[in-house]
Structure formats: C-alpha cells, structure tokens
C-alpha cells in the first residue's frame, strides 16, 4: 500500500511537491540511479564538501581557467541560497512552469536554423550571434555533481545555462570586464556565495582603466539592476526567442547598459571565461 501511493505521486508530479510527499512516505528515487539522486550526482559527506569548497576555491583563484573548480565551489557553498532561489522561482508562475518542465539549453534542443532566420534585435538572433562571436557553445557547461537535492541541482544547472543568455541580455562580452559586470549582476540577484566571491576578487585582475569604468558606471549599473530585476532564472527563454531584447529588458526591469562595451572591445583580444 505504501509503495502504490508514492508511485502515483511520482507519475503525476515532477515538482518538489512530489518529491516532498515521497520523503514523507519515506520513499526516495534511489532505485533509479543506484543510491544517487540524478545521473551526475556524487554523494558527499559534510567533511568532503568542506574540503572541496576550500580546495576548489584555492584552485580557482590560482587558475581562473579552471571553470570546473568554480562550478564545484558554487555547488558546495550554495545550498541555502539555492533553496531561496528555488522558492523565488516557485512563487513566480513562469518559474514554477520551468521547475515543472525542466527545460535544458543544449545545442540539440535549440533550433538553430529557425533562430538564425529571426530578425536582428530578437533574443534568439542576438544569442546566436553572441555564441558565434565568442566561439562558445552551451554544451561545455559542467554537470552539477555535489548538490544533494535533485530539484536544487536543476536550479544550479539552470543558473549555469542562463549565464550566457545573461551576457546577451546585458550586452556584455566575455572578456574579463564583461564577466565581472555579469558577476556583479548575478551576485546582487542570486546571492550565491560563489558569485559574491567572484565579484569581489574579479576586479583584482582588471587594468586600471577598466577598473575605473567598472567603478564609475558599469559596476553600479550592474548592482542596481541586479537588485531590482525580476528573477532571471524564472524566464522561460526557450519560448521567447522571437521577443526583442528591448522588450525583454523592459519586462525584466533592466536598464540599457551605460557603456556599449562590444564595439570598443571587439578589436582587443578577448578570452572566454566561464563562471
């Protein structure tokens, strides 16, 4: 009797409600992935998470190209913040749809021919342009490994996949200055410890002129908008490719960037950093 009811729950709900009721009945989805909660899950103890957090922090500081270390730092330190983010998404109607349907942004799920046929200024076209110009793909994101809750793992994964779209929305390139600006926005929006750490330590690697730019206009704009914008994780981007960027910004309560970085930085060398 006990097993039948959770089975029914499992079938009809994929939300955290379903998960919650499974826990109440003491049945978890352990049988599916032999003790793990999702395919890429690695169960870890608190001690291991602590060592991972410290180790990955040091490794990421020494070598910022190790984006997998930044990812691990985010996962091991972000548990409380992820809960808050998930609750924010649940309270938003579009966000709860995302939590229900669990869309993933991957090259296989994007309709590239359709998107490149869209007019300039739309989200889809600008996103593709961003991917092409910076020679990146959404498939190189590291999978979430150390979050011990299936739904929170999805929220973390969504956060990573939305990062590129955030670059497009804010009009920031993937050089150091652009990444720091996006980091400041994300820190103000999400409050993830990894973002706050990145936002605090990122400017240390900037040149003086760029630091001035950050301090005077760009940084304040990023922080201000991060605070007042709607939760960017709650936007169902996959259904909004035809929407224009201006309209989307207006809806999200984000101002235009004060300085257009793309034109000025196009000529200088740009390295791609993933955070």
């Amino acid at each position, binding site marked *: 009797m006990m097993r039948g009811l959770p089975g029914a729950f499992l079938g009809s709900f994929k939300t955290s409600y379903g998960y919650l009721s499974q826990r109440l009945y003491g049945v978890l989805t352990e049988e599916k992935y032999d003790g793990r909660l999702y395919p890429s899950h690695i169960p870890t103890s608190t001690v*291991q998470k602590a*060592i*991972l957090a410290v*180790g*990955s922090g040091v*490794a990421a500081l020494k070598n910022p190209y*190790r984006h997998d270390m930044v990812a691990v730092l985010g996962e091991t330190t972000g548990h409380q913040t992820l809960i808050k983010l998930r609750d924010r998404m649940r309270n938003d109607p579009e966000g709860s749809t995302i939590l229900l349907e669990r869309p993933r942004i991957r090259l296989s799920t994007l309709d590239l021919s359709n998107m490149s046929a869209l007019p300039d200024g739309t989200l889809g076209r600008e996103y593709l342009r961003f991917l092409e110009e910076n020679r990146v793909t959404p498939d190189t994101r590291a999978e979430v490994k150390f979050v011990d809750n299936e739904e929170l793992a999805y929220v973390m994964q969504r956060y990573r996949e939305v990062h590129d779209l955030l670059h497009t929305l804010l009009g920031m390139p993937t050089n150091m200055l652009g990444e720091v600006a996006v980091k400041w926005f994300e820190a103000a929006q999400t409050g993830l410890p990894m973002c706050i750490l990145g936002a605090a330590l990122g400017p240390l690697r900037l040149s003086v002129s760029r630091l001035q730019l950050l301090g005077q206009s760009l940084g304040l704009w990023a922080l201000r908008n991060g605070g007042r914008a709607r939760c960017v994780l709650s936007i169902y981007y996959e259904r909004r490719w035809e929407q224009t960027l201006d309209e989307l910004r207006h809806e999200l309560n984000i101002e235009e960037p004060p300085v257009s970085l793309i034109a000025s930085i196009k000529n200088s060398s740009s390295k791609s950093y993933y955070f």
Partner: protein
Amino acid sequence: MAAPIRAFVLRVLSDSTRNIHHVLRCRSKYLCRRAAITARRGYSDSTEGRSTHFGFQTVPEEEKAEKVYKVFESVAKKYDVMNDAMSLGIHRLWKDTLLHIMNPQPGLRLLDTAGGTGDISFRFLEYTRSMYDRQQRLRAKSQQTPSWKDIAGHYVSDEEGPPQSRAVVCDINKEMLKVGKQRAEDAGITTGLSWVAGDAEELPFDDDQFDMYTIAFGIRNVTHIEQALQEAFRVLKPGGRFMCLEFSKVTNPLLARLYDAYSFQMIPVLGEVIAGDWKSYQYLVESIRKFPDQEIFKEMIEDAGFFRVQYFNLTGGIVAIHSGFKL
C-alpha cells in the same frame, strides 16, 4: 572439498621436479589455504557468467580492461602530482625501499611492467650507475700504487664503458608511456631505457629474457592476476627475481580505520580538485580494498612457480613488497 584436493593433486603431479619434501611438509597448510584461494578466485576461474570487480562495482570481465584503460588515460597527465599529493610524498620512500631490497648489480636487465611513468626504471638505472661508480672507487682504493703499465691498461679497457644495465618499461596504456617518455627526456636519460606497449597478461617478450621483473602499483588493475604471474614466470631467466609493490591490508585496527577514513574521504576530493576527476580516484581506493591480502597473494605467487616467496610490510601494511625467485 573435492575442488581443493583436486587442485592440490594436480599441483603435486605437475611440479614433480620440485622439492617434494617441501610440499609434503606443508600439505596441511596448503589444504586450508587452497579452499580460501579457490573461493576467492572463483570469480575469475569460473567458465559461466564471467564477471569481475571494478572497484566496488561488478562488471563483465571484457569490460574491466577497457574501463581501467580509460581511468589511466584520464589521470596520466596529473599522475605524478596526484601520487605526491595523496601519499604526501611517501610513495617515493616506498619505491626507494623496493630498490634497496632488490639491490641490483650493474649490467642486469629489468622489466618494469605497468611501469607507466617510469618511476621504478629511473631509480633502477640510477641505483646501478651509482653502484658501479662505488665499485670502481673501491677497486681504485684497493690498488694502492699501480704501476704505469696498469694505468695504461685501465685506459684501454675502459673504452667499453660500464656494463650497461637496461630497463624496459612495459605498460598497456599509451598515455602513461607518453608521460614517462617526456619525463625521461626532461631528466636527460637517453641510454638503457626502452618503452614498450604491452599487456601484463600477455607480454610481448620471449621466454627467459630478464633478470628482474617488477610491477609497482599495477597488478591490482590486471583482470587475471594469475595470468600476469605466469607471464612473469615465463619471461624471467632462471635465477631471476620477481618483485611486486602493491597496496595491501593494514593489520593494525586503529591505523586501518584512519587509513580507510583518509582513503574514502580525502582521496576522491583531492582527485576532483587537482585532476578534475572524482570517479577515477574513487576506483583507485575501491580497487585497493578488492585486492587479496599479503598471505593470499603470497600463495598466488607460489602457485605460479616462484620459490622463496616473502613479503615485507611497509608503513604498517598499507603497502607490501612481495618477492619471489624463479629457480
């Protein structure tokens, strides 16, 4: 009960040239051990449902070699760094102890199986060279006042140089060999070293070729350990020595608990932070637990035909050096 006796009788019949006295004396001990060995080796000897262990998982036998290959392919570049980090540098002492126990004389041939990045071979060459230098110095000291004729004679005979010790590094994984070759180049070692890609279960060498055979931290990754031991027996010259350096069972219970906690908590974390690979290092610590203990492995070596098999526990049993002779 039938299986142990059958195996025992076969062994006696096949080794008729061996010292029967020795066998008869140890008959009772063998009967007890044999049951344990057959039970533990059942998974690799049985003809039906061939599956074996890959860490704590169970996989079909054919898959294990491939999975192990992938593990070492991904860890090859950071292998040496990780060894130092995981063992806090103690692995260097273990390998030095192996060489001291081996005490090779100059001019011998070594086969370093699962040699990978070449640690044992480099140490072997260095050891024999310094031993040769020391022998030369002792020889020079003992000749107090040589005549001019003797000195001239020395100059002529020294043209052929020291007897060349040769080491062959054999590994199944080409990535590990690549890393090893690079290390040899960086260290400036040009002569006396060769790199061969080969399987420990099926060595690409003729019979009776080598004076020494070593396998350091490699035999637990082999799918059929008995086959590797038989191959070792085959390629060794009569009088040759087999040496195996491998993780083993810790006898002290307190140390065992600390060791287990360290292995399962720290090592995969170190693997993730330094090499970006949790799963390979999880496999590593699990495969250590699956390897037979000192006594059982000693029995397995004796089964392959080696004599005077003994083992030395290092660091409280964390690592053991097994040694045997082909006579």
